[in-house]
């Protein structure tokens, strides 16, 4: 074989590779690539540093960096290449240092923190390195130093909003709800998106499962079986405490989902006469309960399209549990995912294009997170490895997904980019499952 023949083979192979690469992948919009090169200098103490300032700065710098890194909008420039000189205020910046090939940043974040009594005042800046122009200059006050995380989250979201030209409001101030094992009970908990600041929503000692947020974040819907009860109930609970219990037709009720207009709840239940479950629809106060499906086979796990016009759900009417779609009045039922195996936990992306779900391939005992493009039925795998990855749920900006995984041993909650990269563990203790990412609360809208 001559070198020439070899070259011909290689050219042929490259051509084929290019042809196969033209097959469009599912595209996450805006694309998840770090196109903007961001340098984030450590914030400094404005006055002479004390132990309190140092510990507040440590938290602030850590949280801000992690928020910006996880946003998946930026190529984060490593701190080890930054100039040594600390930056407190704009006058401290030598822009040439940050443009140099060593750092090569497009934008620079810096600022200072000052403790005044119990409160912390943070001056924060975002500068365009090339034009030397200020993009953001904000002064935040945290009523106590323990709230300095929130200031970092707040500023991170502002930077994301600015540098994404308004395509994302960021996720740094969002929350995640999940079901957490407490002894023999499972209780609903919420945490900040990064796992910090855990709060208890239920403490009834029963089994509380499958939480879903109302679109304004004021309420959580979930299913509850109180201790020793022989009945599952749908609870719609205010995050601040009060709740409505929806009256369901039998002892079985599961997986409630509040509609995007906040007025209705889709759920799985069973009539007294039926042998298995159907999808039901009720008003959020429990009135007007009626079934949308009436079919032999299990129907469960409903989720709403972002317009509220359609509902995706799980049905095993064709054999194994699969992802199906119908109009919100129960008409026009069709199968969305055409593979075998077992699917569950569908969740519609905020832009309406994709549905995330878990899939267990035939003959396998592990689950993985997939997305299906609604218009084409094309599927795309997001998680790999030996562990089970289940219960995906989109972030409100559609750029991230939260899911549960057994990869660290017991079931824990993880977040990742919507392309499956940049996985982070946000719970570490006990057993935690069925996560739901909050929307944007009214305050942030």
């Amino acid at each position, binding site marked *: 074989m001559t070198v020439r023949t*070899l070259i011909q*083979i*290689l050219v042929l*192979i*490259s051509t*084929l*590779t290019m042809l*196969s*690469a033209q*097959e469009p992948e599912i595209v996450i919009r805006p694309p998840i690539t770090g196109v903007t090169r961001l340098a984030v200098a450590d914030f400094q103490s404005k006055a002479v540093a004390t132990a309190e300032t140092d510990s507040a700065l440590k938290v602030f710098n850590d949280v801000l960096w992690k928020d910006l890194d996880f946003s998946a909008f930026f190529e984060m420039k490593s701190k080890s290449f930054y100039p040594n000189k600390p930056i407190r205020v704009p006058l401290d910046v030598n822009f040439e240092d940050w443009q140099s090939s060593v750092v090569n940043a497009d934008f620079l974040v810096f600022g200072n923190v000052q403790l005044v009594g119990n409160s912390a005042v943070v001056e924060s800046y975002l500068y365009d390195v090339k034009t030397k122009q200020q993009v953001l200059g904000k002064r935040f006050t945290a009523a106590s130093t323990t709230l300095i995380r929130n200031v970092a989250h707040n500023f991170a979201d502002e930077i994301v909003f600015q540098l994404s030209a308004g395509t994302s409001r960021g996720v740094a101030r969002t929350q995640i709800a999940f079901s957490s094992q*407490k*002894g*023999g*009970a*499972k209780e609903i908990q919420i945490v900040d998106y990064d796992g910090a600041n855990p709060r208890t929503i239920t403490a009834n000692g029963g*089994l509380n*499962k*499958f939480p879903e947020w109302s679109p304004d974040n004021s309420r959580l819907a979930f299913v509850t*079986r109180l201790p020793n009860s*022989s009945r*599952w109930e749908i609870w719609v609970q205010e995050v601040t405490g009060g709740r409505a219990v929806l009256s369901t037709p039998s*002892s*079985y009720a*599961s997986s409630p989902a509040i509609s995007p207009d906040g007025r209705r709840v889709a759920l799985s239940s069973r009539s007294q006469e039926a*042998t*298995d*479950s159907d999808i039901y629809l009720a008003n959020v106060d429990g009135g007007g309960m009626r079934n949308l499906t009436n079919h032999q086979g*299990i129907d*469960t*796990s409903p989720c709403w399209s972002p317009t509220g016009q359609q509902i995706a759900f*799980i049905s095993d009417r064709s054999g194994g*549990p699969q992802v199906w779609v119908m109009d919100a009045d129960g008409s026009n039922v069709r199968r969305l995912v055409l*593979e075998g195996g*077992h699917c569950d*936990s569908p969740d519609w992306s905020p832009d309406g294009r994709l549905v995330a779900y878990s*899939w*267990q391939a035939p003959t396998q*005992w592990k689950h993985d997170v997939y997305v299906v493009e609604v218009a084409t039925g094309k*599927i*795309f795998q997001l998680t*790999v*490895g030996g*562990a089970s*990855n*289940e219960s995906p749920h989109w972030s409100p900006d559609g750029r991230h997904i939260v899911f549960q995984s057994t*990869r*660290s041993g*017991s079931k824990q909650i*993880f977040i*990742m980019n919507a392309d*499956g990269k*940049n*996985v*982070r*563990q946000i719970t*570490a*203790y*006990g*057993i935690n499952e*069925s996560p739901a990412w909050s929307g944007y609360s009214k305050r942030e809208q």
Partner: protein
Amino acid sequence: MKRVFTALMVLAVFSALMVLSGCKKNPPPVRPTLPPPTTSTPTPTPTGGPAPTIEIQASPSTVERGGQATLAWKTQNATSVVIDGGVGNVSESGSVVITPRDSSTFTAIAKGPGGEAQASTRVTVVSPKEVGGVTSTDIDNLMKAIEDGRVKDVFFAYDKSELSSESRTQLEQNAKWLRQYPGAAVVIEGHCDERGTEEYNLALGDRRAQATKEYLVQLGVTAEQMESISLGEERPFAPGQDEAAYSQNRRAHFTVKR
């Protein structure tokens, strides 16, 4: 030259493999370049480490039938804890209130990066003291029938809720005793093994309990005497990740409603 040739061939074969896998239409499309997600886990599972320890206690250790006892446990260096006898997966330390049907030994297994440890405790169940020569009621009789195995649980195949002929034979026995003690209501719990998803298993457990209840209605037991609830994969009877455990966990379980 030979070395260059070999290198080019290796490259050619590799590229051909890439093309083949890239063109393959069969789902799922796995991107071969994706690193295993474990590498991005911020708190990687440590290998080795101190061995876990576990202690478990029952209080009181003797209860009257139908009475409650509390199991309390604590561990060190454990990442997961399972207690058998229907308690299931639990947190590293905690307590749970149980109502044992009869005398039972509860074994807790703690697993951690450093290995495995187990501890057991026993709860003895005694018959309630007869007060003033009270005669046994339907409830007591049905409890006795469950205890001595006249009324038994029935089992299911993976992902199925159909009753096997063996299950039907057992349910005919169960029906006989349920009809005999109409004053005692039963709760039929539907259970699943852990392999399905949480949502699907809750619905599947319900279908198992319903199939069981319906057959008992056909056999003349009144629907009012029976309640049913699915517990999905929440309360496994046997710990473990093998068919021996799974087959124990796919069942319709009979308890007396109190």
